[in-house]
């Protein structure tokens, strides 16, 4: 909640260029040493955001782990931008069919009621608002919900966009799963993205190794924090002022 003492700890706008903030350097160092959630736990938490019966696209990285953590009582239809709806688990050794791969080139199985279609129809589903939820990885998310997730500034290689921009433009709900800070400790939740953008005002929820945060018109709302972390500590590692409306519960995994 504004006025709860968190204000002073907000990191200024461009956190990338000034990786260690003078004002709270000590406090930040402490934070960086504390244990955080594993990538698998981020995925596990994100799995809980998927409603029963939802059509869902999972991007590269952490999101791709989510399928392993779906609650047993729900059915979710996974979409792959190469033209599959209804992907099941990854194929086991010996049952792989390399004509049946996901967007990461991994052989997958199908669930009953799956379908194949060409790639234009696959992206039509993403862009046209037919996916209930998409989960992407992220390099940065801004306080307006802008997303950067496809290219590291200054990288020498070409980068690659893939289906992320179509998904960012069209999914009904977009969740970003990522680490809360870079390896150097710089916040990945920032005032304004400094990495090349994927889409504007597209992110609805951010799930990190420290917190669950919702992007709302009024700002970034802290919904949950990881076990052992306080809202104030999460704020120190966040480049934007978080709105704290209540006693913040611990991130749940079931």
């Amino acid at each position, binding site marked *: 909640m504004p006025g709860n003492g968190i204000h002073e700890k907000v990191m200024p706008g461009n956190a990338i260029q000034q990786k260690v903030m003078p004002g709270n350097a000590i406090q930040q160092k402490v934070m960086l040493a504390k244990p955080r959630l594993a990538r698998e736990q981020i995925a596990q938490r994100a799995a809980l955001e998927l409603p029963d019966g939802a059509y869902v696209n999972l991007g590269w990285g952490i999101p791709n782990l989510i399928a392993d953590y779906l609650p047993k009582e729900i059915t979710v239809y996974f979409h*792959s931008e190469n033209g599959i709806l209804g992907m099941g688990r990854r194929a086991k050794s010996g049952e792989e069919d*390399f004509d049946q791969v996901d967007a990461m080139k991994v052989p997958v199985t199908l669930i009953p009621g799956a379908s194949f*279609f*060409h790639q234009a129809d696959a992206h039509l589903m993403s862009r046209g608002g037919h996916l209930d939820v998409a989960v992407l990885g992220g390099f940065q998310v801004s306080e307006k919900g802008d997303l950067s997730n496809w290219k590291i500034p200054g990288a020498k*290689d070409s980068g*690659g966009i*893939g289906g992320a921009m*179509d998904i*960012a433009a069209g999914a009904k709900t977009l969740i970003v799963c990522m680490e809360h800070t870079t390896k150097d400790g710089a916040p990945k939740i920032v005032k304004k993205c400094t990495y*090349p953008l994927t889409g504007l005002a597209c992110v609805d929820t951010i799930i990190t190794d420290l917190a669950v945060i919702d992007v709302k018109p009024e700002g970034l709302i802290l919904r949950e924090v990881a076990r052992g972390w306080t809202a104030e500590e999460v704020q120190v590692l966040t480049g934007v002022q978080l709105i704290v409306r209540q006693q913040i519960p611990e991130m749940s995994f079931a």
Partner: protein
Amino acid sequence: MKQKLYASLDEAVADIPDGAQIMFGGFGGAGFPNNLIQALARKGTKNITAVSNNCGTREGELGLMFKNNQIKHVIASFPGPHANYFQERFAAKEVTLELVPQGILCERMRAAGAGLQGFYTTVGVGTEVAEGKEERLLEGERCILELPIHADYALIKAQQADELGNLTYRLAARNFNPIMAMAAKTTIAEVEEIVPVGTIDPEHVMTPAIFVHRIVQAKGLRYAG
């Protein structure tokens, strides 16, 4: 009547001239016209503008084209983590790249096939992709204008063809192939199997024969990454 069936891969690509704009099907290792690509390597066509989702996987898929320096410009969405021959040439500025969001790549090709002259999309607004493109408000949204991508040839991979050119694809090996078949002046399909006309159920034809100009059976390389 013009025969669509070609006896060899080499004959199927024999007339592809230097400087041609060529679409290459395939995604994630599946549905790549690997045998046609090898024929095109043998033929040695140079200065190709390639349209493809990725830029090869080591020597596989389009990798061979980059290794041989046959491509001067590529329109792609996701060059890929193992496109080392492409990345080398790209770093050396021997090949230029236009990076396109994957769905927009599909739509721009489809627009070419569908006789549409351009479309507006919110995809890429405010990003590098929008640079140099017309932006306007439509239906209350910021949109950019995207133009069709045409091609002289499409090299695609299908599962079955009948002799008229009706195609089916297997599982997720469909991907970009049907879209490219619609977008190119001349579509060349390498197929696993050639079946008698009438074998493919008319309701299950995935690419109607009107989009397919040459067919060649290729029992060789199915996966090449």
